[in-house]
């Protein structure tokens, strides 16, 4: 660990300082320290509290899942599903899927991984994941043929099934022991036996503060080179410690002074503080970033009228919102797709209104035509989530310029998530508009994208669009047989979603990670994983 960075320029009072430094070094015990075991100290974007990667979609818990569990299938950097724990075969009629577990899979308690474990895990996954719920409507049976082989039978073809099972984010198919997977999907698991590349050190877990992972010496990686979640997960360090630092500034200072090795999300505005340090590398891991978006509530006036929703779409623009949120143009993308830039289904179909930037005058006209009566838009602003604080502030100004009356209400994120679940009218605690962010793999297809669900009050995501046409198009997409056909349907879906203003993507941004140069081999992918990484002293 370098404590005294060469980058630190000569400063006055150097004599005094070196004297003090000497004593400080002695005091801190920095010089020695039992650093025999190779340990990666990583500051993650949030503290981990929930340890069940199936009950929650929280990214930090998903990342935890990748540490201690293996997934049934993997996905490579070309977005192609690949075998991971199991390989698969699909029957010609597209109705029978046969999975075969590879050799050498073992739980950390020493038991082998069996078909029964996989089946129970898949069933639990099927209760929680949105796409999987669609899939499981068509699953007739899921049964073991042997300890190593099991078969899934469908009632009708679902060509997206393998992609769904291989997806790297949302809810990946983490496989748990059967006894654990039997936990009701509404209750969090309490047994953290896994078969992944790392073992969870339960004794050192401090919820919200720290999680410690040790290398799983019994893990047998695949032979292929690693590529995203596919390929061999070869662990090259002894220990990985995740910590959280509630103050972004502190985290940046900590990595700058060599107290930590990895900072998952670097505040873009603070990059200048790091750029001068030759011991650090700042880069975005993988090309996919985050989509930030506004969701309108279809139930409450004035957004129950599609004309007024369109006026809002016209009044908003991606550039000013991204500028306030990100600032640095290197890390933001103005792009009209709902599926994320550079994804297979990316298209700008129907995106003109948002791409044309804020058009306040036009929005005012549209409002006039729609007969907007000045009903205030209740815009919820979370104050305790840095990545969501800026969008509402800018949006409020843009909407006001576009002729809307805006009532921006600051609240903590918990209040927001509770309130956004309310289908009541505004005066009874309902709402009109809020913002949230997704990582691209969560929105990159009409099946994954949670917003593109027209199920109304019963089934749709918060905002509750009642849009049967949209749902019909999604079914068509899921059962499409060729990639080209899927692309066409995806573009139609997006055009339709813009037409009815299902939601408003307000741009994409990238968050760079800061990596100490002592680390090597960090994989470039949307999920930060710690296999393949080496650490030098």
């Amino acid at each position, binding site marked *: 660990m370098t404590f*005294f*960075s060469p980058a*630190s320029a000569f*400063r006055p009072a150097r004599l005094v*300082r070196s004297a*003090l*430094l000497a004593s*400080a070094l*002695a*005091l*801190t*015990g920095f010089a020695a320290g039992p650093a025999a075991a190779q340990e990666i100290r990583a500051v993650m974007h949030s*503290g981990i*509290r*929930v*340890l069940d990667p199936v*009950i*929650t*979609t*929280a990214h930090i*818990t998903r990342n935890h899942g990748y540490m201690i569990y293996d997934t049934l299938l993997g996905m490579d950097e070309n977005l192609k599903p690949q075998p991971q724990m199991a390989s698969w075969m699909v029957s010609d009629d597209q109705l029978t899927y046969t999975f075969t577990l590879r050799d050498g899979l073992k739980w950390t308690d020493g038991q082998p991984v069996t078909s029964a474990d996989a089946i129970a895990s898949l069933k639990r996954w099927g209760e*929680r994941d*949105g796409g999987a719920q669609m899939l499981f409507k068509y699953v007739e049976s899921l049964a073991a043929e042997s300890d190593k082989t099991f078969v899934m039978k469908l009632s009708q073809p679902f060509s997206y099934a393998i992609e769904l099972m291989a997806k790297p984010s*949302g*809810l990946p198919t983490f496989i748990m022991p059967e006894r654990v997977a039997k936990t*009701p*999907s*509404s*209750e*969090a698991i309490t047994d953290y036996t896994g078969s992944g590349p790392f073992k969870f050190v339960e004794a050192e877990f*401090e*919820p*919200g*503060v*720290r999680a410690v992972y040790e290398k799983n010496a019994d893990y047998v990686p695949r032979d292929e080179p690693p590529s995203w979640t596919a390929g061999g997960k070869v662990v090259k360090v002894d220990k990985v410690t995740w*910590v959280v*630092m*509630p*103050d972004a500034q*502190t*985290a940046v*200072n*900590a990595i*700058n*002074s060599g*107290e930590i090795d990895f900072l998952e999300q670097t505040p873009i505005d603070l990059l200048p503080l790091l750029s001068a340090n030759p011991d650090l590398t700042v880069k975005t891991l993988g090309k996919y970033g985050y989509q930030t978006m506004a969701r309108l509530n279809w139930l409450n006036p004035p957004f129950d009228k599609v004309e007024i929703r369109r006026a809002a779409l016209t009044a908003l623009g991606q550039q000013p919102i991204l500028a306030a949120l990100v600032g640095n143009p290197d890390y933001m993308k103005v792009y009209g797709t709902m599926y994320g830039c550079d994804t297979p289904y990316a298209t700008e179909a129907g995106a003109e209104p948002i791409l044309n930037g804020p058009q306040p005058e036009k929005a005012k006209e549209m409002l006039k035509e729609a007969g907007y009566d000045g009903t205030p838009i209740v815009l919820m602003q979370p104050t*305790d989530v840095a990545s969501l604080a800026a969008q509402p502030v800018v949006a409020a100004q843009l909407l006001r310029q576009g002729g809307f009356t805006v009532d921006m209400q600051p609240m*903590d994120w*918990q*209040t927001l*998530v*509770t*309130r956004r*679940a309310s289908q009541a009218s505004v005066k009874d*605690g309902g709402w009109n508009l809020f913002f*949230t962010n*997704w990582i691209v793999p969560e929105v990159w297809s009409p099946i994954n994208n*949670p917003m593109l669900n027209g199920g109304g009050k019963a*089934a749709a*995501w918060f905002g509750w669009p009642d849009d049967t046409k949209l749902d019909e198009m999604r079914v068509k997409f899921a059962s499409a047989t060729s990639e080209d056909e899927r692309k066409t349907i995806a573009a139609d879906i997006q055009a339709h979603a813009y037409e009815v203003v299902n939601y408003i993507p307000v741009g994409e941004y990238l968050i760079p990670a800061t990596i100490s140069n002592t680390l090597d081999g960090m994989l470039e992918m949307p999920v930060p994983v710690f296999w393949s990484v080496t650490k030098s002293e």
Partner: protein
Amino acid sequence: MLAYIARRILASVPVLLVVALFVFLLLRLTPGDPAAIIAGDMATPDQLERIRDSLGLNEPLLTQFVTWSGQLLSGDFGSSLISRTPVLTLIGQRLEPTLSLAIVTMIITLVLSIPMGVIAAWRHGSLTDNAVMAISVLGFSIPVFVTGYIFIQIFAIDLRLLPVQGFRSVFDGVGPFLARIVLPAFTLATIYIALIARMTRAAMLEVLDEDYIRTARAKGLTERIVLFRHALRNAAVPILTVVGTGFALMISGVVVTESVFNIPGLGRLTVDAILARDYPVIQALILLTSGIYVVINLLIDISYAFMDPRIRY
């Protein structure tokens, strides 16, 4: 004395009951849903409902309160709704950092503020008095997080003398412990120095006017003995009161310092728990801090008897 202590402990029961009920109601009336935090962004209303059911949050409030109090009486503080960790384990993990910070802060505070207050009172109205008071007020007039940033900038970033953040247990070595605790402790101490220096000054001014101080001077004692042996001992009661309550309140005062210096303590645990609506954790923590407050007040009152032989219970 023992009867007094027993009586006081008995009297604190209703206080804690008031706190418990108040906090319970406040929390349950606050919008927020731990199920939403558990399930994440993609959950559907139906899924949330099932999680709420399994957490027992759909029970009537009274049932929940009775269940919780019943558990409390049997010594069970419950588990975090979010992480399933027993609340006592959580508190156990976070107690040491906060306690360390509080104790070191108190030591720094006392070592600096009491002489400051004594000297200011002694030189009442002089330039020294004004200067000492101005310095102590200055510490009080800057928000804690700014003080923290300034200290980090100077001592950790510019001078590179100390680490910028973190916590090490004192049991893992005094050196690393002190290196990490000294900046946050000084940061926090800036507030308390102001407070206690002022209180010391005020109490000393009161005492210095007493007849026995004149007597002490008439005996030909040196000013040092007059100030510290005669005056300070008599001024101890009000000072001790402030020190004690300050210490008790520090548990919540540390929140900001813990964030800035990344110390995994009780303050942050509480704020995180509030933001996540982790009811059992918040309830236990507030009961704990209230309990600490009550106990410290009791200790203060008992120590009065040692400070001042006139006080007997």
